[in-house]
């Protein structure tokens, strides 16, 4: 059975290690925060200027001066810090953020990512995505394996305008966990009950299947 968005987030949360500074994009990536493994501390960076982002506030603690990069009202944890956008992207650019998780429209077998623009549609802008993908030390993409038309989003070459080149290290979809190495997707794990053939048939880019591929077990 394919994972739902919560399953994708839960699987990605296993990549978290104690003490990591992590930037979570909007959508599925945001859900990762709900599955931080017990016993480890993670510091969430929000690129609008905060380290140590906490959960949504209770109604009575909402503060319009305290939002995240998704413009949602949030809280800050003890030991957090506020700073400005220039500083925020300075720490991103300098590789101080250990892990970035973000969504994508397309990912290619060499790690290119497209997630900001669809020609012919209203373009809202890249926000901080280009800066994040150009500089993050480790990037995991969380997305569905196919687009709403049923076309694979894991391609030999992206068809949409790029956000960044050769930067994605890992992709987690509802079907599979894949690393990107040496110009190919390497199948690491399957969603429960999903076959290698299912995954292969829905992956347009080069897919390497290294022997046995374990199922994800939660």
């Amino acid at each position, binding site marked *: 059975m394919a994972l739902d968005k919560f399953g994708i987030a839960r699987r990605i949360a296993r990549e978290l290690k104690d003490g990591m500074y992590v930037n979570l994009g909007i959508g599925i990536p945001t859900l990762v925060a709900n599955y931080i493994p017990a016993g480890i501390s993670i510091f969430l960076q929000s690129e609008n200027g905060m380290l140590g982002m906490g959960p*949504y506030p209770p109604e009575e603690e909402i503060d319009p001066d305290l939002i995240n990069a998704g413009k949602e009202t949030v809280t800050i944890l003890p030991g957090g810090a506020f700073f400005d*956008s220039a500083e925020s992207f300075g720490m991103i*650019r300098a590789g101080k953020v250990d892990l970035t998780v973000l969504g994508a429209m397309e990912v290619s077998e060499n790690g290119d990512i497209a997630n900001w623009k669809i020609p012919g549609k209203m373009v809202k802008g890249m926000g901080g995505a280009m800066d994040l993908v*150009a500089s993050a030390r480790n990037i995991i993409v969380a997305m569905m394996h196919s687009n709403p038309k049923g076309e694979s989003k894991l391609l030999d070459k992206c068809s949409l305008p790029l956000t960044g080149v050769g930067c994605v290290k890992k992709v987690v979809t509802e079907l599979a966990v894949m690393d990107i190495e040496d110009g190919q997707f390497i199948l690491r794990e399957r969603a429960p009950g999903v076959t290698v053939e299912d995954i292969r048939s829905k992956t347009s880019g080069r897919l390497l299947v290294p022997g046995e591929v374990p199922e994800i077990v939660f």
Partner: protein
Amino acid sequence: MNKVYSNAMDALAGIANGSTIMLGGFGLCGIPENSIAALVKMGVNDLTCISNNAGVDDFGLGLLLKTRQIRKMISSYVGENEEFERQLLSGELEVDLVPQGTLATRIQMAGMGIPAFYTPAGYGTEIAEGKEVRDFNGKPHLMEYALHANFAIVKAWKGDSMGNLVFRKTTRNFSTSMARAGDITIAEVEELVQPGMLDPDQVHVPGIYVHRIFQGQQYEKRIERKTIKLASS
């Protein structure tokens, strides 16, 4: 030497048709509400506005879009706003999209006298078109230029009559860099205090960068996406 103005209209004197203006804020957080209202009242148009976002239909920079005072936006993410989309598609409005970190840093560099710098953001994308590419440590970078403005308008939490500013929580965003980058910098503050009332160790923007300051009124601080923790969660 007096930097203190009694209201937004007085403080914004000199902004004219065709001016380039930086406006602080991220979404609707930390935007200079009083100054935006004054710009609407002044009716100046053909403005180039540098701001990370473009407000919503009836708040923030959306108010200046509604009155068609903006000719060009330089932003990283726009269009939470139907009027924006309409003007963009009709060609009334020009938009220059800049990666958010590059935008923040270009503004920061203007405030520190660095005319150009190199960043990896946008390499290999359409943003790189026409830009100088240069390798550093084996990684390609784009040359980007400092971004200046005739006026920078920011909103701080507290300020003193010397122009020192202190911000609260995530309202700093682009404002602290913009305050340093304006030819003329105008700050509106929730609370204007006397010199000596701010801790000199805790000033986010030293007064040297701020030319005019006034105490704003009736901040609405509208929330764009109210998200709350449910009692059960």
